[in-house]
């Protein structure tokens, strides 16, 4: 399974080359825009799956995205603090919040549905706080980053290209950390914890520390996604970036792509973001609202029939076929 999670190096290099040339290929800006969103959501969803693959289903990644983004933007709008500096404070806040909530949940043994519901409450709470402090955050209307034109020192660019590469860098970082965790002792510890916390603890595995660590790492990477998103779009809205809908989107992406593989979450981000954009552009003005019913329907069907996700199922099928072939060859020498 581990080897199959990697694409062959040749294909990988080709994709990388393609990805680097892409923004200079003179394609419509809209394509570049969609790709940037895919990179950002791909990074966040991959980070979500650090936890998700061990069945820690977090419904508050929207909150981590939002907290980091809002703090960065508010510090800039009010104190003219460069987002390059402000983002670290935002990420620190996310790390602390995720650490406290993670520790509290794991210390008291909240697993499965209980954990998911608790994180759901966190998401709604964060969204409601932002809405409530509307004098500062502009509430439901959403906040706009004060535009400076192109100001690299303030993380603002008129061109999409810098954002494209930042989002790509973030995505690669997120995938890299996935691999690092996968190859670490922590992966073994978390697999054991997922199966049986009591047995895992009895052989010396620190349940709370392992789970909290992975939750904090996951939240911080999601927060980075939030910062890049805010600077790119220049607008944040508590309902669309934080609340349940946004938080669930990451879960959908991970599930649709396949949350147990390295590339699954990214592929899920490609499918869902692509689907959202396609539906919005094609049917958005014609069938108002019905487009989203179709979107929901497609997701439900995929969850029921492909619980391991598109990529996960594909990998599994290929693996099975290869095993069968090997078995047949060894049977008939």
């Amino acid at each position, binding site marked *: 399974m581990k080897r199959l999670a990697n694409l062959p190096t040749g294909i990988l290099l080709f994709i990388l080359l393609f990805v680097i040339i892409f923004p200079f290929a003179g394609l419509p800006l809209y394509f570049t825009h969609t790709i940037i969103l895919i990179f950002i959501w791909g990074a966040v969803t991959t980070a979500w799956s650090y936890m998700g693959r061990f069945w820690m289903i977090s419904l508050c990644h929207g909150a981590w995205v939002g907290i980091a983004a809002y703090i960065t933007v508010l510090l800039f709008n009010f104190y003219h603090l460069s987002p390059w500096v402000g983002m670290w404070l935002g990420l620190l806040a996310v790390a602390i919040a995720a650490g406290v909530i993670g520790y509290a949940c794991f210390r008291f043994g909240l697993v499965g549905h209980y954990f998911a519901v608790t994180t759901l409450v966190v998401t709604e709470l964060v969204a409601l706080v932002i809405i409530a402090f509307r004098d500062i955050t502009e509430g439901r209307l959403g906040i706009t980053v004060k535009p400076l034109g192109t100001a690299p020192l303030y993380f603002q660019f008129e061109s999409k290209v810098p954002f494209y590469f930042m989002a790509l860098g973030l995505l690669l970082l997120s995938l890299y950390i996935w691999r690092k965790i996968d190859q670490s002792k922590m992966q073994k510890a978390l697999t054991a914890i997922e199966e049986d916390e009591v047995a895992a603890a009895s052989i010396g595995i620190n349940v*709370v520390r392992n789970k909290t660590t992975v939750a904090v790492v996951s939240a911080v990477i999601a927060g980075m996604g939030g910062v890049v998103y805010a600077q790119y779009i220049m607008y944040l809205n508590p309902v669309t970036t934080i609340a349940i809908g946004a938080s669930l989107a990451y879960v959908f992406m991970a599930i649709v792509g396949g949350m147990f593989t390295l590339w699954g979450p990214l592929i899920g981000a490609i499918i869902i973001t692509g689907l959202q954009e396609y539906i919005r552009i094609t049917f958005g003005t014609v069938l108002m609202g019905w487009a989203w019913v179709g979107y929901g329907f497609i997701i439900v069907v995929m969850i029921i029939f492909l619980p391991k996700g598109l990529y996960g199922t594909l990998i599994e099928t290929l693996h099975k076929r290869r095993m069968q072939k090997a078995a047949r060859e060894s049977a008939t020498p």
Partner: protein
Amino acid sequence: MLEVHSVSKYFGGLGALKEVDLRVNEGEFVGLIGPNGSGKTTLFNVLTGVLKPTSGKITFMGHDIIGLIPDKICHLGIARTFQIPRPFKTMSVVENVMLGVMFGGRYSTRSGEDARQEALRCLDNIGMKVTEATMPGELGVAGLRRLELGRALATRPKLLLLDEVISGLNAEEISEATSVLKRIKDEMGITIIWVEHIMGPLMNLVERVIVLDYGEVIAEGTTSEVSRDERVIEAYLGAE
């Protein structure tokens, strides 16, 4: 080595352990017996940090271990097996034991190949013959109990708590298992507390017996002393 001072554990109004006092010396092989519901497993859960006692004091090799989390206690050198085997089912038998090797010791930094070798040695030590690909699901009761034992031993304990390691086994498997226990005690020098319902093998092997009934220690001594004790007979067979 292990000292338990008037430890009580109440679940609401129900006293699972009442003012339990006991002491285990280094190198001892102690049997812990008692009728169903007498608090044996609760005592193990308290000793390993799974449950926090309502009151009392427990010291292990000079450390106060009350309030420590289970993995800390494991690192101090107490390992246990579970009455109902709890293997990690998605991992092979060898991988199960490897986890004990990798996480059991306090300064355990072993990884990969090193841990695998140690796990194989550990399985070999307890006479468990499996391939690298054997999954826990393929094992019978005897195999699962043996795996529990192997995984616990892999953490390099000083004190081993065994919770019914021979129940459900046939006569041949029992004699195999008891010879393994003897080896663990004699060759590895590990102190053992053994909870068991099957009296024969236990009485043959242990040096001292502690009897629990309704959460209280009602008798303590050599096997012959205990089997003559009136309160023990009463607890097991009922009063005349």
